[in-house]
C-alpha cells in the first residue's frame, strides 16, 4: 500500500519556507471551501451536507485532536472524554441562558471549567495506569452525564433549551442555519489545536509524553516528572474538549444528557485509533471518515450501520496501526551522505 504519511513528510521537508507557506494556505483554502462542494459527489443524501460538515465532522475532528493528546501522545487510555465535552456544553447552556454573557465570553470559562475538571479527575486517577485508568475515566464520563440528568438547574432529562447563538464577530452574523459560518469558526479552532499540538510535540513536553507512553518507569528514572506531564496532557486534552462543547451548545442551541453518552467517548476513541494514534494528520483523517461515512451511506438505511462496522473491521485488518500511523522515518542515510 502506498505510504501517504512518508510522501507527505517528504514533500514538507523538501520544500523551502515560501513553498511551505503556500502548501499550508492552499490546504486551508481547500478545506475552507468544502461547504461549497454540496453539489458534487461529496453531497450527503437525507441529511443536509453543510450541517453534516459542522456536526459531526468538524466537531469530531476537534475532539479527536484533543483526545489524541491524551491517548496518542501520552498513552493514557481515557474512556470518559465526553465528560469534558459535556462540561463545556453545559457551561455554555447554563451561562448562556441565565446570564448576559455571550458565547465568546463564555468560551474561556467553559475551557477553564473543563481544564479544572481534568485536573480534579487527573490528580487521583493518574496515579493508576492502563486498564484501571480506563475504568476510572469511564466512570467519570458517566458521573458527569448522570449529574446533568439529576440536577434541576441543568434541566434534568429535558436539558437546556434556547441557548443563544454567538453574537456577530467581525460583522459576521451567526444565524441558526448558517452552517458555513459555524464550519469556518470550527476550522479556526481546529487550526489552533493543530498549532498547539504540533508546537508541543516538537519540544520538551512532546518528548516527555513520548517517553511516558513508551516506558513510564524509565522516564521517571531519567528525571522526567511523569505525573506533572500526565496531568498536563489530561488538562490540555480537556481544554480542547471543553472548547468543542461550548461551540456545540451554541450551534445546536439545545442540549440534553442524551447528547453526552459513553457512545461519544467510544466514537472519538475510534477516530483516534482508526486514523492512527499519535499522528495528528491520521487522527484528523480518521475523524473525518468516521463522522462523514455514516451520513454518506444513509441511502442504505437499515444496512447503514452494518456497512459502517464492516468498513471499520476491514480497515483495521488492512492497516492495524491506522490510516496514517505514527512511525517516524529514518533519516540516517541522508545525514550520512551530508557529512
Amino acid at each position, binding site marked *: 500500500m502506498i505510504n501517504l504519511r512518508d510522501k507527505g513528510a517528504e514533500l514538507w521537508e523538501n520544500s523551502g519556507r515560501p513553498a511551505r507557506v503556500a502548501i499550508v494556505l492552499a490546504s486551508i483554502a481547500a478545506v475552507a471551501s468544502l461547504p461549497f462542494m454540496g453539489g458534487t459527489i461529496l453531497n450527503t443524501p437525507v441529511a443536509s451536507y453543510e450541517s453534516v460538515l459542522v456536526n459531526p465532522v468538524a466537531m469530531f475532528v476537534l475532539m479527536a485532536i484533543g483526545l489524541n493528546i491524551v491517548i496518542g501522545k501520552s498513552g493514557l487510555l481515557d474512556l470518559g472524554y465526553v465528560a469534558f465535552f459535556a462540561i463545556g456544553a453545559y457551561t455554555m447552556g447554563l451561562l448562556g441562558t441565565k446570564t448576559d454573557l455571550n458565547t465568546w465570553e463564555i468560551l474561556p470559562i467553559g475551557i477553564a471549567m473543563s481544564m479544572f475538571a481534568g485536573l480534579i479527575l487527573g490528580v487521583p486517577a493518574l496515579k493508576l495506569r492502563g486498564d484501571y485508568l480506563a475504568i476510572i475515566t469511564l466512570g467519570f464520563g458517566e458521573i458527569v452525564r448522570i449529574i446533568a440528568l439529576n440536577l434541576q438547574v441543568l434541566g434534568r432529562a429535558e436539558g437546556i433549551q434556547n441557548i443563544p447563538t454567538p453574537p456577530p464577530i467581525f460583522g459576521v452574523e451567526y444565524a441558526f442555519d448558517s452552517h458555513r459560518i459555524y464550519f469556518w469558526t470550527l476550522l479556526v479552532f481546529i487550526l489552533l489545536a493543530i498549532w498547539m499540538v504540533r508546537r508541543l510535540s516538537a519540544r520538551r513536553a512532546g518528548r516527555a509524553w513520548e517517553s511516558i507512553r513508551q516506558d513510564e518507569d524509565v522516564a521517571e528514572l*531519567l*528525571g522526567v516528572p511523569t505525573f506533572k*506531564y500526565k496531568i498536563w496532557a489530561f488538562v490540555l486534552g480537556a481544554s480542547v474538549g471543553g472548547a468543542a462543547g461550548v461551540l456545540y451548545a451554541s450551534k445546536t442551541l439545545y442540549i440534553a444528557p442524551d447528547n453526552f453518552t459513553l457512545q461519544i467517548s467510544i466514537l472519538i476513541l475510534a477516530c483516534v485509533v482508526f486514523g492512527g494514534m499519535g499522528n495528528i494528520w491520521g487522527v484528523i483523517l480518521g475523524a473525518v471518515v468516521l463522522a462523514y461515512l455514516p451520513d454518506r451511506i444513509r441511502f442504505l438505511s437499515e444496512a447503514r450501520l452494518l456497512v459502517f462496522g464492516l468498513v471499520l473491521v476491514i480497515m483495521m485488518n488492512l492497516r492495524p496501526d491506522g490510516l496514517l500511523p505514527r512511525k517516524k522515518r529514518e533519516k540516517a542515510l541522508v545525514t550520512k551522505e551530508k557529512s
Partner: protein
Amino acid sequence: MTEPLLSLKNVTMKFGGVTALNDVSFDVKPQEILGLIGPNGAGKTTIFNVITGVYQLTSGAISFEGESLAGKKRYKITRSGVARTFQNIRLWGDMTSLENVMTATDTHKKSGLLSGLFGMPISRREEKRDKARAQELLDFIGIGEYSDRLAKNLPYGVQRRLEIARALGTEPKLLLLDEPAAGFNPAEKVELAETIRRIRYAGYTVLLIEHDMSLVMKVSDRVVVLDFGQKIADDLPKAIQEDPRVIEAYLGVPENAS
C-alpha cells in the same frame, strides 16, 4: 579523607520473607570507579533499585552528598545527580537516539510546557543548547553517527552505549552502570573499558555492575563483592582476586576443606 559521594549504611531490603539485601554498607568516593560484583541473585541490581528509589528500604539509610534519599521521588533523585542504565536495555524505541538523550537533558531545563508552546526565547535557547549537548554526548560515547536513527532499529552494541549516553544526559554526578558489557565480544569490551575510563576522566563517578571479571578488575579502583545479599569483601581489585571468601562464593569450597 574526602566525603563519600554516596553512602549506604546498614541497608536491608526484604521482599516478604526473602531478604535481598542484608545489612549492606559501603561508600562511593568522588571520581572513583567502584566495581560491584557477585554471583547471580546476590542483590547487585537490587542495590541500584534502592539507590534510585524503585524500592523503599526495609531499614538502613542511603545518603547522596550527605543528603538522605529516603522517600524522595524517583525523578528528584535523578535530578540531584544519580543516573542509571538498565541491565535489559530499556530505551524509548520509537524515538531517535538524539531524542532519547534530549529527553534526559530536559531534566535540567528551566523552561516548561507553556514557554515551549508560546515559543519564548528561553525555550528556544534551551532547545538549541540541549540538542548540541545531546549530540556531544553521542559523539563522546562514540555513536554520534546514529543520532537520527530510531533506537529500536539500532544494533545491539549501539543500544547498550546509547543507554550510557542517555544516562549522562541527566548530567549525573554518579553514574550507575548495570552490566554494560553484557553480550559484548572481547573487542567491544576493551572499547567499553576505555569509554568507562573516559567517563571518569570527564568528572563522573561510576558504580559498575559487571559479570566480566577481567573488565571489572581492569577498570575498577575498588571492588565490592556481594553474596546472598551480604557484603563479603570491599577492597582493591588485586586483593579481591585473592580473597578466599570471594573465591568460595564464586567457585564453592572443596568438600574436604572444612
